[in-house]
């Protein structure tokens, strides 16, 4: 890390990028949203962003460490590359994720600089990057809660892969799906009630098949809790019965949107066992995305699956989409019944594809995503 006093704008060194990407990064950091950052070309940097997707990533990293032994780094790569004194950010980069990582590093650097020398001695035995880890945990708490473990597992490791799958039958999700199916078949409303941790649920869920609606009297947090507790644990007990009387004081939501949310909450970054990792899948049509809880990368995955069939593995590996988002999103699509097995004939959509307007589209997306975040 720079020996100077840390202050805005934070000084960033770009290392390992090819000429084109470095030029793009420099352009990015000139943008309105990055006024608190400036790109420098020397050891005055507060931290570095190191691209490890060149032809010899280990050589790049060694050369970087030789030149800047103590400089903190943000490592960016399509592959998982965890390095000492560095934070890792998996490509493809998005403005939001890059912004979050830079903010985390700024928090860390500020904390480091605010410590007196005595503080530093006292904390030597503490695990490295404690402050950064804490900031990172805070920034990603919601994301981890909803989309599960960030670590990627090998698609060749059957044991590890097994931990990234779940059986819908063992959750509210399975019970709800069956009830919806039965209700639609008979045309009669059904009500789900029960108990959680031995206490009667403070409300119920009523399925209205004719109107394609669900009415319920449960808070969102309770539905989330019910979604993640396994039925076979005995801690969640559900009963489904015919119910013609409306629930007093209920809220009404679209049935598919409700099922979608339960599926995402249950999935937590895992793939439903109703699907197979290596099975090519395709979408019958786009889901009604403005009505559903958005999973990161869902628009990109939808556009791919509408035009061709892909396996979960292909979506992760060919397009660099984190597993937890692919698994959550495929589980949600499957819940609403628009995902089907497909042949593996593909239209070429690789990220290396050179389409004339791709860079322009990226900029529009960047702008729209910025607006969404603001």
């Amino acid at each position, binding site marked *: 890390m720079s020996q100077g006093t840390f202050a805005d704008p934070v000084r960033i060194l770009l290392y390992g990028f090819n000429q084109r990407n470095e030029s793009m990064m420099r*352009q*990015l950091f000139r*943008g*309105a*949203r990055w006024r608190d950052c400036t790109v420098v070309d020397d050891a005055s940097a507060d931290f570095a962003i190191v691209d490890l997707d060149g032809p010899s990533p280990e050589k790049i990293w060694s050369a970087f460490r030789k030149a800047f032994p103590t400089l903190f780094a943000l490592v960016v790569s399509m592959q998982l590359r965890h390095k000492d004194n560095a934070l890792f950010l998996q490509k*493809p*980069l*998005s*403005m*939001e994720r890059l912004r979050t990582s830079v903010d985390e590093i700024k928090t860390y650097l500020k904390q480091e600089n605010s410590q007196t020398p005595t503080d530093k001695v006292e904390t030597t035995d503490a695990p490295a990057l404690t402050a950064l880890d804490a900031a990172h945990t805070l920034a990603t708490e919601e994301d981890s809660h909803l989309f599960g473990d960030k670590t990627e597992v090998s698609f060749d490791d059957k044991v590890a892969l097994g931990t990234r799958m779940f059986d819908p039958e063992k959750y509210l999700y399975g019970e709800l799906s069956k009830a919806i199916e039965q209700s639609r078949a008979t045309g009669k409303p059904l009500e789900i009630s029960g108990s959680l941790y031995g206490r009667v649920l403070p409300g119920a869920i009523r399925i209205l098949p004719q*109107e*394609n609606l669900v009415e319920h009297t449960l808070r969102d947090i309770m539905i989330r809790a019910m979604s993640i507790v396994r039925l076979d644990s005995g801690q969640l007990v559900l009963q489904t019965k015919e119910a013609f009387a409306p629930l007093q004081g209920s809220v009404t939501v*679209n049935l*598919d949107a409700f099922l979608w949310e339960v599926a995402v909450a249950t999935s937590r970054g895992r793939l439903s066992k109703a699907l197979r990792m290596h099975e090519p899948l395709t979408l019958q*049509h*786009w889901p*009604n*995305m*403005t*009505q559903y809880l*958005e999973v990161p990368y869902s*628009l*990109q995955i*939808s*556009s*791919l699956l*509408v*035009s061709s069939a892909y396996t979960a593995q292909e979506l992760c590996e060919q*397009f*660099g989409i984190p597993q937890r988002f692919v698994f959550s999103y495929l589980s949600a699509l499957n819940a609403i019944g628009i995902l089907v097995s497909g042949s593996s004939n593909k239209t070429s*959509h*690789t*990220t290396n*594809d050179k*389409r*004339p*307007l*791709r*860079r*322009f*589209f*990226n*900029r*529009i*997306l*960047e*702008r*729209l*995503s910025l*607006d*969404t975040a603001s």
Partner: protein
Amino acid sequence: MKDNAHYKIIFTGPVGAGKTTAIAALSDVPPVTTEQKATDETASRKELTTTSLDYGIMRLENGQSVHLYGTPGQERFNFMWEILTEGGIGLVLLLDAARENPEQDMVFFIEAFQELISSTGLAIGLSRVDLVENADALRLRLIEVLKSRQLNPPVFFVDARKKEDIQTLVRAMLYSIDPGITHG
């Protein structure tokens, strides 16, 4: 591509579907709109109607811009549509779910903009869904009609007043043109 190229996103659809509002939601400048008091059959749907076009602009970080054009809602102005679509990178079709026959409206507009759709992309926003009884069924009917024409674009419920709905629709349109784009 040249930085000063004039690239457009075209917003079209029948009177009252929310084109002017959608452009206002995305534009960085107050949209230029040419609305007049409606005097024909439109008067029953809205007091003011767009008689030539709506125009807005979305500025990007590198100094480039995307121009947002809304077509006049009334069919008697459709001589302007061909001129408007030159340089179009995609079409956002907004349909009013509460109109008498949204399927017919959709077919009319996808035929009118067939050339633009076949060379770029399409996304469909279904507005005023709260005013119809089973909007989900209507959406599925529209999708079936589109499939019979070998089209499978995003079809989302939108409230044109909600910026995030319009943003999601435009993002989906861009992905449907090129799923290999990587941001967001």
